[in-house]
C-alpha cells in the first residue's frame, strides 16, 4: 500500500486500515447473518379472515413464537407415523374407534375445506408455524344421528378432543427413529417446494429443533403419566400452569376438568369464572389462557385478548335443533324457577358464586389442586412477563354455579364431566352410571347430553370410570327428588336454554 505521495504507509496506518476492514467484514457478516435469521425465523406474515368466527377459530393467539411447530413438519407427522396415530388416538377407547391418518383421529373439529382443524392457527414467523388458540378446546363437534354429518359449534366444549392422546402421539413420534430429516424431508418435499436453503434449514435446524422442543414439552408434561387419564373433552386445567409455567414441584393433585363452553360470557361480569372461581374477570381468563398456550405479553397481546373477550362476550350457542314441546316446557320452566334458578339463572341470587364443597358434594379434587399460593405464584410469573390485569385466584372452596347457556351441548355434566346426561344428573348419585363412554359425538336428544351407552358408544367412545380419582359423580343432588314427569318437563325446558 502506498500513500498519495508514493511513500509506503506507516506500519500503524496499515494496521489501522486492516483492522477497520476486518471489523467492517465482521459487521457485514453479522448484519447479513442477522438479516438471514430474521428472514428465515422471524419475518412475520399476516392472517386474513372472512369474518370474526373464522378469526376466532383459525386466528393466532400469539403462541407461535414460543410454542409453534413448523407447519410442514406438523402436517406430515401422521402419515409418517400412522401406527402411532392408531395407537394413541384409540388408547382407552372402544374397539371400533376409527383412526384415520390425520389429526381428525384425535377428535379435533375439522371443517371441510380448511387446512387444519379448528383451534390450530397457521402463521408465518419466518416459516409457517402451527399454534393453538382458544377454539381447540372450545369448538364442539356433534352429530344429530349416527349417520348424520358433523356439525361444529364455535365456543362449545370440545368434548371429542383427545388432547392427551394428541400430545402423547407427538411425543412418541419425537422419540421414534423415523423422526429424522432423511425420513421427513422427502415427505415434506411432496407438498412443499423447497429451495436448497430451505432444505438445509429444515434438515439441519427445524427438524432437530422440533424434535428437541417435543422432548422438552414431554419432560414438562411428565406428571401426566402419574395421574388418571384426561380422556376426551378434558384436561388438567390448573396443574398445567402450576407445573409448567410456574415450575412448582410436581404434587399428587388431580385437577381433571371438562372444557367449558364460552358462550355469552359478557353477562358474567362481577361473578366468579372458571370451575372453582379461579378468576374474577373475563379478561384475566383470556390473558392467562393465552399465556398458557405460549403467547408472550408482547406487542398486540392486550388488543388481541380484548378482541377475544368481546367476541366470546356475546357468542351464542346454536339453538336446540328440534322444536321443544311448549306445554311441557312451560311446566318445566316452573320447576326450573323453583329448583334451579337461584343458582343457574342469570341474575340468580347465588349465580356466579362458589357453592362450598360441603354443600355441593361434587368431586373435590379440582378445588384441592389449586391453592391460593399457586395463584400467587402464577400472578408473580405473569406479572413478571408483563401481562396486566391477569390476576388469578386460588380455588374458592367450591364450584361456581354457572348460568346455563346452550345446556344441550354441555354433556357430560358437572365440572369433571362425570355425569353423561341431564337425566342422569337428575338421578340420585348411586343411580348415575359408574362407567360410561365419552367422546362419541352423537347427541342424546332425549336425555340430553351425548350418547354414552349402547354398542355404538362403547365401540367408539372412551371408557370413563367414575371410580378414578377426580372422576367422582357424587353431589349436585338438586332435583333428584322430583317425579319423572317433572324431570322430563325440566329437561324439555333446559333444551331451550
Amino acid at each position, binding site marked *: 500500500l502506498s500513500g498519495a505521495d508514493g511513500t509506503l504507509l506507516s506500519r500503524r496506518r496499515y494496521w489501522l486500515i486492516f483492522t477497520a476492514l476486518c471489523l467492517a467484514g465482521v459487521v457485514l457478516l453479522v448484519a447479513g447473518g442477522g438479516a438471514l435469521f430474521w428472514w428465515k425465523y422471524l419475518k412475520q406474515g399476516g392472517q386474513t379472515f372472512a369474518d370474526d368466527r373464522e378469526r376466532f377459530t383459525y386466528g393466532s393467539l400469539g403462541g407461535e413464537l414460543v410454542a409453534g411447530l413448523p407447519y*410442514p413438519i406438523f402436517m406430515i407427522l401422521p402419515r409418517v407415523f400412522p401406527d402411532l396415530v392408531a395407537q394413541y388416538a384409540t388408547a382407552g377407547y372402544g374397539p371400533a374407534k*376409527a383412526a384415520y391418518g390425520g389429526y381428525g383421529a384425535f377428535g379435533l373439529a375439522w371443517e371441510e375445506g380448511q387446512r387444519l382443524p379448528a383451534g390450530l392457527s397457521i402463521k408465518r414467523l419466518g416459516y409457517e408455524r402451527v399454534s393453538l388458540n382458544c377454539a381447540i378446546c372450545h369448538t364442539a363437534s356433534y352429530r344429530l344421528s349416527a349417520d348424520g354429518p358433523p356439525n361444529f359449534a364455535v365456543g362449545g366444549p370440545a368434548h371429542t378432543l383427545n388432547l392427551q392422546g394428541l400430545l402423547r402421539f407427538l411425543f412418541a413420534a419425537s422419540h421414534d427413529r423415523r423422526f429424522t430429516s432423511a425420513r421427513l424431508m422427502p415427505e415434506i418435499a411432496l407438498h412443499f417446494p423447497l429451495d436448497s436453503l430451505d432444505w438445509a434449514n429444515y434438515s439441519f435446524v427445524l427438524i432437530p429443533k422440533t424434535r428437541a422442543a417435543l422432548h422438552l414439552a414431554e419432560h414438562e408434561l411428565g406428571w401426566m403419566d402419574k395421574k388418571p387419564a384426561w380422556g376426551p373433552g378434558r384436561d388438567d386445567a390448573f396443574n398445567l400452569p402450576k407445573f409448567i409455567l410456574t415450575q412448582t414441584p410436581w404434587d399428587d393433585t388431580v385437577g381433571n376438568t371438562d372444557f367449558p363452553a364460552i358462550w355469552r360470557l359478557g353477562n358474567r361480569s362481577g361473578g366468579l369464572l372458571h370451575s372453582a372461581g379461579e378468576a374474577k374477570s373475563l379478561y384475566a381468563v383470556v390473558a392467562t389462557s393465552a399465556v398458557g398456550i405460549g403467547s408472550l405479553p408482547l406487542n398486540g397481546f392486550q388488543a388481541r385478548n380484548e378482541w377475544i373477550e368481546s367476541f366470546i362476550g356475546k357468542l351464542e350457542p346454536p339453538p336446540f335443533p328440534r322444536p321443544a314441546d311448549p306445554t311441557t316446557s312451560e311446566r318445566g320452566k316452573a320447576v326450573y324457577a323453583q329448583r334451579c334458578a337461584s343458582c343457574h339463572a342469570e341474575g340468580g341470587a347465588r349465580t356466579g358464586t362458589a357453592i362450598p364443597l360441603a354443600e355441593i358434594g361434587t368431586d373435590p379434587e379440582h378445588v384441592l389442586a389449586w391453592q391460593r399460593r399457586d395463584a400467587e405464584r402464577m400472578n408473580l410469573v405473569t406479572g413478571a412477563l408483563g401481562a396486566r390485569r391477569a390476576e388469578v385466584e386460588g380455588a374458592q372452596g367450591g364450584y361456581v354455579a354457572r348460568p346455563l347457556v346452550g345446556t344441550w351441548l354441555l354433556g357430560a355434566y358437572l365440572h369433571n364431566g362425570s355425569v353423561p346426561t341431564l337425566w342422569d344428573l337428575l338421578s340420585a348419585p348411586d343411580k348415575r352410571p359408574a362407567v360410561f363412554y365419552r367422546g362419541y359425538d352423537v347427541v342424546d336428544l332425549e336425555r340430553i347430553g351425548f350418547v354414552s351407552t349402547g354398542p355404538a358408544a362403547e365401540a367408539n367412545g372412551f371408557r370413563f370410570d367414575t371410580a378414578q380419582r377426580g372422576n367422582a359423580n357424587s353431589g349436585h343432588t338438586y332435583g333428584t327428588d322430583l317425579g319423572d314427569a317433572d324431570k322430563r318437563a325440566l329437561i324439555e325446558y333446559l333444551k331451550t336454554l
Partner: protein
Amino acid sequence: MFRRIRGSVRYCWRGRWRAALLVFLLLLFVGAVLYADYSRDSAEAFFDDPVKQFKYGSTGGDRLAGIPEGIFRALPQLCREYLPGDGWQSLGFIFEEGMDRPIGTSRRYSLGFERIALNCAACHVGTYRATPESKPIAVPGMPAHRLDLGRFTQFLTQCALDERFNPWQVIQAAEHAGAHYSLRQRLLLEYVAVPAMKEALILARYRFRFLDHEVTPGPGRFDTFGPEKALLNWPLEKVPPEQSVGIVDFPSLWLQGPRAKSDMHLHWDGNNTDVEERNRSAAFGTGAVPSLLDRKSLSFIAGWLRSDANQPPKYPFTTDAAAAERGKPLYAKYCAECHGASGRDFSGARVGQIEPISKIRTDPCRLDNYTHDLTAEQGNLYAAFPAERFSHFRKTDGYANLPLDGIWLRAPYLHNGSVPTVRDLLEPADNRAKVFYRGNDLVDRLRLGFVTSASEAGGAKLFRYETQCTDDPAVCAREQNPENRHDANVCAPGKWAGNSNRGHDGPAYGTDLPAEDKDAIVEFLKTF
C-alpha cells in the same frame, strides 16, 4: 528414460498445487456434468395438438412414478407370466399406429433417464368396435373400460418382488427391448435406480393394500380415492369395514365446459363442484403431487377438456328414427329432470345435483368410502399453494345426477358399472344380469352398451363380474351377505360389497314401463 521419469516426478512435485487444482477442477467439471444431467427435466409435449397432449402429455407424475423407459418396455417380457397375455395390451392398454408407447403414458427425461408414467388418458380413452372383425376405434374422453388398472398395479408389485427383478437382469431385459445405456446410466441403474424402484414398488404394494380389502376391480374400474389415502398413509386396518370399498367405473371426460359452467357436482358422489380441483385430485392417481405437478401441461389439457372440441362421437350406426321419436317424450317425462334435456343440452332442475342415497338406493359402498375425515384432510394436500388448495370437497349423502352425453360409450352403467346395458338399467333390479363379462369393446346395438355375454373376445379371457353370489344356494348360504343387499343404504361388508346392481329402480325410473317404451327410450338415447 529413468531420468525422464525423475524429471516428470520432480515437475509434479514442484507443481503439486497446480496438479491438485487441476484434479479439483476436473472433479468439479465431472460433478457438474453429472448434476446437470441428473437435474435435467423435460417432458415430451405436443402443444400443437391438444388431443395428443391429452393422450401422451405429462401430468408431472412421471417425476415421481416414472419408470425408466427401457425397463417399462422390458417388464412385460421380464415378468410375462404375471400378465394375462402378451405385452401391455393384454391389460387393456391401447397402442396407436406411429406411437411407441400406449395411450395414457407420458415420457419425461427426469433423474437421469427417459421415464414413462401414466397420465389422465390411461383411464379416460376407450375403444369400441362395430363388429368382432373390425379394428377398435380409440375415443379420447371415453372411459377406458378395458384397462385393468388393478391388475396393472398387481403386476408391477409382483414383478418387483420377483427374483428376476435385480439390476443385472432388468438391465439385460431393457437392452433386449432396445435400450442403449451409457456406462454412467448403467451404473446409475445398477446401484440406484433399479434398487430404488424395487423399494418404491414394495412400499406401493403396502400402501395400496386397500385393494386387498375389496372386491377385484377388473377392467374399467378402480378405487379412486384409495391413492389419496395411500398418500396420506392411513392406518387402513383402523378404518371401519363399511368404509373400505371404493371401487367405481372410470367416468367419461367429455364436455367439461358446460359442467363447470353450471357448477355441477363432479365425481360419482358429487363431492366437488370445481373442475380444476377435480383435475388436480385425479392427478394424484398418476403420482402428480403438488411439488411435482406439471402445471403447464395440465392446464393445457384442462383447457382442452373444457373446450367445445371435447365432445363424444355421434352414434355411428343406424337408428330407428320413429322409435327414437317415440322415446323422446318418454325420456322427457322420466329422465330429463335429472339427466338433462338431451346429450348436449344439460338443462334440468336436478342435473348435476345430488340424489340422496335413500332415494336412489344404488350400491352405497363408494359413498361410505369417501368420508368427512378424508374431505377434511384433502384441504392439506396443496397447503403450500394457496391458489390451488382444495377447498370445495364436501362429504355428500348420495350420488350425483350426471348428464348422458355419449351414453352409448359409457357402459356398463351406474357408478360401479354393475349394469351391463341401458336396456338392463331400465329393468327392475331383480331382472338385471347377476353375472356378466366386462372388457369387450364390441358395441351391443340392441340393448345399448357393450356385448357382455361372451366370456372371451379375440382369444383373450374377459373379466367375470358378479353382482352377488351366483354359486349353489348351499355355498352362498355360507357367505356373508351373499345377495349383496344394502337395505339400510349403508355398505354391508361381504365378498361382493361394492358390486351391487340394485337401485335406480322403480316407477319413477321407468323400470315398470312396457318393453316397447323401454326400447324407444334406448333408441332415443342413441342420439346422445
